């Protein structure tokens, strides 16, 4: 469970993998956003825009490249613009300026019919509050995307039943959503999105409304599914632990701006500013940092061989069990990268005493 991030995307046989690229994306909410885009580009602050012009800055100059087949987490507190960001990918929200491409499709060029087709064939979405159709059964909910696409009743029943089984809800297909618990409802939400067989899965705080145990369950389900499916997943969350567990890459958003992006390990080892440092202070580093980051070049020594992707906690456990205070760090194929000492591992697992010396900033929630 704790080695979630070792998942390597595998090519799916059914759907091609596509990447998503956001370029210089701006979103201003209000009656006349185009009037202020220039000023915002030149650095007008969110507060000034709101106070003087009564427009809300949703996103400012967002650039993210989302790798095909990877899980891209977008993390931020409420009001940081993360839900706005994800809705740009399927254009539920129109950007004020910028470019959005999915694979080789320029999303902003699509007309309304083409956009609906794009939504049906390329993206599926899972929502924070589930947003199931209360008047449809679980089966009817799951097959909704296929129904919109005009697929025959028999075929879509088959498909939907397959996904209902896959998320562990067999036997519930004739129930209505409000007969199910929250966790089960979100599994329906997931099945509904997956039944569409789109290469992209957009998850808007999909697990935030669930209680912690169920949330962990759902994360496991998602990671298991992703092993087989290799979709490009965009996952929005405000929970750092969730971000670190799921994300191949994480982008941190504050006040509509991306303030850091990288792997979970990169963000923890070198937070871009005091705000992020403060954020990551309490993370269990032993479950995020991998041996590769600590490997010192050198000759093989007498000790266990550790996969470079082993997290420190597991590495320490193995070395302790074998009674060795040094280990070799090797690639999946067994090639030596370097060595690591138990003391270095323990050192890296202890959080730094003080975050970097900038004054802590208001998170702006």
């Amino acid at each position, binding site marked *: 469970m704790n080695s979630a991030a070792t998942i390597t995307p595998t090519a799916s046989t059914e759907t091609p993998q596509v990447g998503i690229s956001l370029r210089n994306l701006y979103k201003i909410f209000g009656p006349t956003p185009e009037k202020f885009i220039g000023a915002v580009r030149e650095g007008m602050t969110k507060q000034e825009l709101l106070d003087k012009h009564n427009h809300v800055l949703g996103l400012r100059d967002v650039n993210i490249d989302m790798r095909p087949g990877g899980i891209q987490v977008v993390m931020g507190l409420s009001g940081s613009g993360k839900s706005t960001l994800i809705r740009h990918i*399927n254009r*539920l929200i129109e950007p004020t300026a910028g470019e959005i491409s999915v694979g080789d499709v320029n999303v902003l060029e699509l007309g309304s019919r083409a956009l*609906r*087709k*794009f*939504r*049906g*064939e390329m*993206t*599926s*979405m899972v*929502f924070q*509050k589930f*947003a*199931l*159709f*209360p*008047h*449809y*059964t679980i089966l009817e909910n799951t097959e*909704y*995307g296929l*129904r*919109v*696409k005009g697929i025959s009743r028999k075929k879509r029943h088959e498909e939907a039943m397959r996904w209902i089984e896959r998320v562990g809800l067999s036997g519930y297909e004739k*129930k*209505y*959503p*409000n*007969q*199910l*618990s929250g966790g089960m409802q979100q599994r329906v939400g997931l099945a*509904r999105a997956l039944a*569409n067989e789109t290469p992209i899965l*957009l998850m808007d705080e999909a697990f935030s409304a669930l209680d912690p145990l169920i949330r962990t369950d759902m994360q496991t389900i998602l990671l298991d599914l992703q092993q087989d499916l290799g979709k490009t997943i965009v996952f929005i969350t405000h929970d750092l632990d969730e971000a670190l567990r799921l994300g191949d890459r994480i982008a941190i958003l504050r006040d509509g701006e991306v303030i850091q992006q990288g792997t979970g390990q990169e963000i923890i080892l070198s937070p871009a500013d005091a705000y992020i440092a403060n954020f990551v202070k309490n993370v269990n580093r032993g479950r995020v940092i991998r041996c590769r980051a600590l490997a010192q070049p050198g000759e093989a020594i007498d000790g266990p061989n550790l996969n470079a992707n082993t997290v420190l906690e597991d590495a320490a456990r193995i070395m302790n069990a074998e009674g060795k205070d040094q280990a070799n760090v090797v690639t999946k194929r067994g090639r030596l990268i370097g060595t690591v000492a138990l003391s270095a591992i323990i050192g890296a697992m202890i959080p730094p005493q003080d975050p970097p010396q900038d004054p802590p900033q208001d998170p702006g929630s």
Partner: protein
Amino acid sequence: MNSDTLRQLRRFVDMEFRSFTREYGGMLEKLFEPLGDFLLFSERLLTQSPWPMVLAAILFAVWVTSRSLKIVLGTAATLLLIGYFGMWQDTMRTLAMIVASTLTALTLGLPIGIVMSRSDRLQRWLTPALDVMQTMPSFVYLIPVVMILGIGRVPGLLAVVVYAIPPIIRFTNLGIRLVAKDVLEAAEAFGANGLQKLFQVQLPLALPTIMGGVNQTIMMALSMVVIASMIGVPGLGQPVLKAISNQYFTQGVLNGLAIVGIAIVFDRASQAYGKRLQRHLEATHE
């Protein structure tokens, strides 16, 4: 405004309207003739068929809509009592009228309500118009209707529809506007188009509210029966009217109760139908 200009204004409007009626009254009457024929036909069907057959047909219709034995038995008891007290013919005439005017109100009102829910501007314009339709004393708009179409079933139907249509428009509009935004967004995210959103999400979820409107429309149509009888609509309103002018207390009460009886039958059957369409609301987790 002094009384002279006021008099002139009144005379001008009245004269203009009168000449309009003379000019186009015949044409408009022709236009509404099929409606009148239909009303006459359904009335004859209900009054001239043997009563056991009509009773069986009504009970069957109630069963099909409500699927409730209780409501069917209640309907049977009500209709048998009405027959026993000699009000069968008038009740059937009223029934034909109510069914026709309610169906007219629903077929016109639902689409108007749907369009209204999609346009804030239309809502701003229509709301005061609906207020006027509901509060203007019905006699006032009976005047032009009678001037154009004379007295009879068709002007009666129009008067009833004008009075009874506002609730279905209002409730349809409100119901659609109250549909949760996140569910609508979900449909959109899966690529649904406007019509799919309307028929798959908005209307089904607005149904409880819309059924409230249907109920109100039926009730208001029934409450117009007596007033409509003043312009020659046959049915239970006629004996009530007679009872008022002759102070026949018992006759008034009996016919009034017959109106109440069919109101309850209509209401229970339509609400049970609405509930059957919303089975998902009954089931809950835990």
